């Protein structure tokens, strides 16, 4: 049977096909795998739900708070640099959660890179997308692109300039390729115009991009540099 054995008269080229919201290939595979894992006892539905709940509450706010508190309290800053995972607990992040040995892909080796008047830090994982998820949440899409990973380790100043960050003379760049078990974040310097600000006020200007090192905190700027967002086909609910 062909598609043309019907006898009515119309112009096929101008027929608009109805929009069918199809299940996608990766959705089919993901559901099939999850069902089989649960049926075989590889993991339980409860374990999957528990980790989902954990994953849905991580984000960059604790990291911003850690930096803000370090700006205000020199003792806390010393702790943050010497024992970053102890300092993380003070802002509500226990790197050993939720498994008792951490989030497996992120390990439990955390290091905070301090910017100075002569040094600016920026992080990348040239091999995949290693990122301090427990304290920063999931990485942005651009951080995972081969493009950022290829170029940052070789042309850091050009890449930073594409984020609008042009470093003044006398400030060296230090690229940290987080290619093994350490996870890193950047502690920028406190910007001008923030004297007398509360910790909560400071948290607002320490964006995720500042914690990666592609932006510097600035009084009045509370959004990331990259705001364009591709919509999902079937977004997480």
């Amino acid at each position, binding site marked *: 049977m062909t598609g043309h054995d019907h006898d009515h008269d119309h112009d096929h080229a101008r027929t608009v096909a109805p929009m*069918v*919201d199809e*299940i996608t290939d*990766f*959705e*089919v*595979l*993901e*559901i*099939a*795998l*999850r069902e*089989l*894992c*649960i*049926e*075989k*006892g*590889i*993991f*339980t*539905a409860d*374990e*999957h739900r528990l*980790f*989902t709940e954990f*994953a849905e509450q991580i984000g960059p706010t604790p990291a911003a708070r850690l930096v803000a508190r370090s700006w205000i309290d020199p003792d806390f800053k010393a702790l943050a640099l010497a024992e970053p995972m102890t300092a993380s607990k003070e802002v509500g992040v226990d790197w050993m959660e*939720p498994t008792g*040995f951490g*989030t*497996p892909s992120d*390990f*439990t080796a955390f290091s905070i890179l301090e910017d100075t008047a002569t040094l600016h830090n920026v992080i990348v994982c*040239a*091999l*995949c997308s290693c990122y301090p998820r427990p304290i920063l949440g999931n990485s*942005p*899409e651009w951080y995972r692109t081969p*493009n950022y*990973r*290829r*170029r940052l380790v070789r042309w850091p100043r*050009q890449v930073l300039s594409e984020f609008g960050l042009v470093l003044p003379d006398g400030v*060296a*760049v*230090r*690229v*940290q*390729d987080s290619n093994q*078990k350490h996870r890193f974040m950047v502690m920028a310097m406190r910007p001008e115009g923030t004297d007398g600000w509360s910790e909560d006020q400071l948290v607002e200007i320490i964006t995720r991009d500042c914690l990666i090192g592609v932006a510097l905190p600035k009084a009045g700027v509370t959004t990331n540099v*990259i*705001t364009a*967002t*591709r919509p*999902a*086909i*079937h*977004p*997480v*609910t």
Partner: protein
Amino acid sequence: MSTAEERAAALDLVARLKSSYPELPNAPTPDLLDHKRIWAYLKTDHDVGGEPDAPMTYENKQYEGWEENTYVICEVLAWRGIWLSEERRRIGNVDLGRTMYLGLPYYGRWLLAVARVLAEKQHIGLTELSERMVEVRERYEGGLEGKTLEAKPKFEGDGSNVKRNEHHIRAVGKGDPQVFAGQAGQAKFKVGDPVFVRELPALFYTRTPEYVRGAVGEVSALAYESPAPEDETWDRQGVKPEWFYVVKFNLADLWPAYTGPADDVLRTEIPERWLRAAS
């Protein structure tokens, strides 16, 4: 040791490799393939640092439901001792081959790694997986039409006989790499030591980037003790952990025609086996 120019030239060559070099026939006879091109074919695909590329517009992306579920499955499989995250990185980032590595979405590769590890370790048969995929697709025949995407396992299985690794038990309460502390013995290098990165063959897996191989740097810190990724990626048992070092390289030494100031640096972590004392 290699020069900055030699390292850049090797990366230029790798960057032009699509699924194959256009100047060669498919499945070339051995005499047609030189050492440098064999090197490029065998290079671990994830190691893209320093490959030439033009600027692009960077974007964020809204999370697909399946992407979040995929991330969660991967982490739960590690939590429950089915794999180490280092096995996931090899299977999802390197074993795929360059065409799929660069061609598929990020979490698509994570998801294929789940299917691959469950099949390879004989937890799930390919036949039952294929049948289940057909079944799932049939549930949504004609489109979602308001139906939510959900997994509907037929029952909850007994997992007591599922083969699991030792790590997911041993690391509890200690963390990783802390679970390996005290096992590597005396560290060969100390902070400030000049070291050069060996040019070891890197067949199938490594996390020592090509762009530092042959280069000279300086030890910035002793990081921790851990099995090297070359062993950990197969969860090889009985392997002695070794020291990892944070090594600092001067960007102007690392790359030809580096245009930034002379004190711009890059740091990366390298296991001891890759390092030798430099003078």
